[in-house]
């Protein structure tokens, strides 16, 4: 790979989950004011799209930064198995005391994927709906798209 170019591999995954935006640190009125209908006590759901971007050397023998089979298996084991068709508030320990906004979902998913052994995790993007998406690159200063 020429050092003049930075190449990244991007892969999208989908999961569907429910959540409720509500915090015990605020009163009922404050929760309603801050979170609006997202604070409905029974929760609601989204079809999330997760976009994972990896960088690394392109292996001349395979033409790949990472084998998709390895990446798919890792994302399935570390994220999709736990998140798909689940309640983020009830089923994911990280959200017991942390509001499962998509900002926080990004941070939690990045934490889970950071240890992917075959390439460097540059950033993730999570789209909550077709209209809202969030990106997180950890503390990697180069991870945000130039």
């Amino acid at each position, binding site marked *: 790979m020429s050092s003049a170019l*930075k*190449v990244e591999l991007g*892969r999208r995954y989908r999961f569907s989950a429910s959540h409720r935006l509500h915090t015990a640190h605020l009163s009922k009125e404050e929760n309603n004011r801050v979170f609006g209908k997202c604070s409905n006590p029974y929760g609601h759901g989204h079809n999330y799209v997760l976009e994972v971007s990896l960088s690394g050397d392109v292996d001349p023998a395979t*033409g790949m930064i990472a084998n998709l089979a390895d990446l798919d298996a890792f994302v399935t084991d570390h994220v999709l198995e736990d998140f798909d068709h689940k309640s983020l508030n009830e089923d994911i320990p990280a959200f017991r005391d942390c509001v499962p906004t998509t900002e926080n979902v990004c941070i939690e998913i990045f934490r889970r994927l950071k240890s992917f052994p075959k390439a460097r995790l540059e950033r993730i993007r999570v789209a909550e709906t077709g209209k809202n998406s969030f990106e997180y690159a950890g503390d990697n200063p180069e991870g945000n798209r*130039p």
Partner: protein
Amino acid sequence: MVLITRKIEFSASHLYHNPNFSAEENRRVFGKCNNPHGHGHNYTLEVTVAGEPDPVTGMVLDLKELKEILEREVMQRMDHRHLNYEVPELAGQIPTCENIAQVLWRLLDPKITRGRLHHVRLYESPDLFADCYRNGAAAAGKL
């Protein structure tokens, strides 16, 4: 600095096979992409050029000019072609998204003389793509 992006689509066939691997190794590493008769995709290419708008025309570059460059360099070379056999720039390489994106960058970069090539994204499918940036672009902030 303004970024301007043009999107094109082309359809091509390919297969993944490394002649230095055994048949079993090829199947293990490349899975069904190793089918000897090949398979195909509708590729989508997004090309982003960075520059200052010309004070007279208001344009970073004339989109018609970019369209012609993409037609000549990409469509004529790759559309309805077999990437393994018909694209000399990919000879000896596995035609993955990562490798095709780099070839496209190297073809387009010298041809874009108004503005500067900033980003190439090649989708092999809606769920799989490769990005190319000039190395150091990220470190330089927003350019």
